[in-house]
């Protein structure tokens, strides 16, 4: 039984990490173009570094 409080805290921390990551990805503009992201995966390797350069910085 004494382990339960630890487990609760650990599960909360994991959840909080998820929340922080979501808020970060939101701020980072990762949801701006969901359809485009799905297509860009298929592009040739050479274009990948250039695409990263071209990503809008905010």
């Amino acid at each position, binding site marked *: *039984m004494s382990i*339960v409080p630890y487990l*609760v805290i650990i599960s*909360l921390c994991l959840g909080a990490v998820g*929340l922080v990551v979501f808020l970060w990805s939101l701020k980072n503009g990762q949801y701006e173009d969901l*359809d*485009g992201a799905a*297509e860009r995966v298929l*592009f040739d390797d050479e274009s990948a570094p250039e695409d990263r350069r*071209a990503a809008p910085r905010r």
Partner: protein
Amino acid sequence: MSGHPTAAGLADKGILQASSVVDDSLRQTDLSVPSIRCGGCIWKIEQALNALDGVERARVNLSTKRVCVLWRADREAPPLIRTLADVGYAAHLEEPGNDTPDRTLSELIRALAVAGFATGNIMLLSVSVWSGADAAARDLFHGVSALIALPALVYSGRIFFRSAARAIRHGRTNMDVPISIGVLLAFGLSLFETFEGGEQAYFEASVMLLFFLLIGRTLDHLMREKARRAVSGLAKLVPRVVQVVRADGHHVTRPLSSVEPGMSVLVAAGERVPVDGRVAAGLSDVDRSLVTGESAPQSAGVGSVVQAGMLNLTGPLTVTATAAEAGSFLADMVRLMERAEAGRPVYRRVADRATRFYAPLVHGVALASFVGWMVAAGDLHQATVVAVAVLIITCPCALGLAVPMVQVVAARRLFERGIMIKDGAVLERLTDIDAVVFDKTGTLTMGAPVLRNRQAIAPENLALAAALGAQSRHPLSRALAAFEDKESPAMPVSGHVTEHPGCGLEALSDHGRFRLGRAAWALDAAARPTPGAFEDSDQTETVLSKDGELLEVFRFDDPLRPGAREAVGALKARGIEIHLLSGDRAGPVRRLAGDLGLDVFEAALRPRDKVAYLEGLAEAGHKVLMVGDGLNDAPALAAAQVSMAPGTAADVGRNAAGLVFLGDGLEAVPFAVALSHRADRLIRQNFLLAIVYNGAALPFAVLGFVTPLVAAVAMSLSSIAVVANALRLNAGSGRRRRHEGTKQRRPAFALETTE
């Protein structure tokens, strides 16, 4: 690329004005490219634009079908639109500043994320409590839940608390008041229970309520009208500075506002006339389509009256102002628009109407059950629990989702068909319409002349005319230039080509003197047919001559927009009246009306007349959808119950319209109307679902049977049912279809303007 002006080339001139400053060295331009459909388009467009000189980077957004281009400010604006036209994509400039990050939206989404996190975690703990945790574990879990719920309420709940506080301060009530009271009461009661070691706590209910409500609120915000007024686009049409000709013949640059009647203003070819006036010197063709809706350009010489906003096509003109800026046609239009926008009846959205009726009901029932239990049992604790349960059960989660969820799905469906809507209310307004008013030029027709008698024309004459036409920006020349064959250029016109404004083009070569233009000018008097033979009022034509001898006659007309016939048929089948209003002459209007089988039409209307006509219809009890494109339609677009404009419309028209369709096809009109009806049906079903659900659960709550578990289940199920029902709008949409369409659906705009 031969570098001669085309429609796309002219559009590129607007890039500088439509760009925003990023930093000292960069400017940003946003383009809307409706025909982006797949990864291949992304690749092609980014390759083409990134290769341009001065472009720092171009990035395609497939979801919004837009391209964001950053270009170096110290260079000339890159020819983005022409480059896109060359690779087969029609593009429109987006207004700068439309993309400013939406603070409210990001606040809502963050609040939503926090509420979602809290709901999930409290739910985990609550499930173990419901499954029968022993007293010690239950109290511990309740305590942890309280610790999670408190910051979540403070952070996510403030959106509702703020609005509720504002309403109460003004002595009103809105839906946020019962929500805030319910959430706070549920939290306070649960806190009390936790300290007392009680069995039931409503932490998950209070946070889940916020979560569901925030989903609805966020979707609703997405569908709210962005504060954007159509009028602001009007002023941008004419340059703010003009070239004034002084008495001594010198030109000075002056701000437009300083122009007074009697002053002479120089209007270069390709510029818009800045003020109303009379031509004092020069000869040119003037495109009046924006102002009057007339399809064919008119020649303008000394004495011709011109109005602000007309486009000077071929030669420089000196115009003597007859009115100051404030008194000229455009300023008049601005006032007309402002009046129309202000005069439009305020539309009360379905959701707002429902809320007004619902909020007092919720208060009343909760208060009544509290008092009832106090009287019946005399137990304050028990009565509070019941009142909280009533507030939670009647919470309008599903109701809050009912409308925005459907509208978001509908907006997505419309967007897939290339139709953009300004806000959710547009869909509601669209449902009611019983009459459609169409503009002619640029709406029912394409607004650009197309060669009609191509079969009858000898290929070598066509090639010759195309080569000549490529040297001019006159619409008829441009239509001919589309036939230019770049591989084997027409031989004889390699020589000198001059443009005679108001008349046509002349090329002198070893083979003789070639002229392309008006019959009266291009042909010798002897070769000229009897007067009137070329003056068929329904069509426009131009002739090609060699040394005064007739070589060929080119006849043009303004073709119907694709789908116009189908659109008219589909609307009629719905029992919707169709009216045709045009600023054009009676002849072409009558012919078009006959073509499409329209009984009600009016020609030669001024913008003011169109507004008056719409007001007349409204007074007769009609709900009117106005479809139009030009500047001359803008006041009418603003005055109608709901309005629609093609993507090629003038900025003003696009901003004034509630819906903009980006493709060429006019089928967009009946499609939008049909979809609005389906959306309306789903919204009504959703209301019914939500009300039945709440109504069924309410007696249990009042009688005190609702445990936290029941509340959580009821809330989730009703919300899920409403969302699932809204998604039915997607049935048969076939999102995959856009890939199949990539190949054959080349934008017609690009086809016409490709050199």
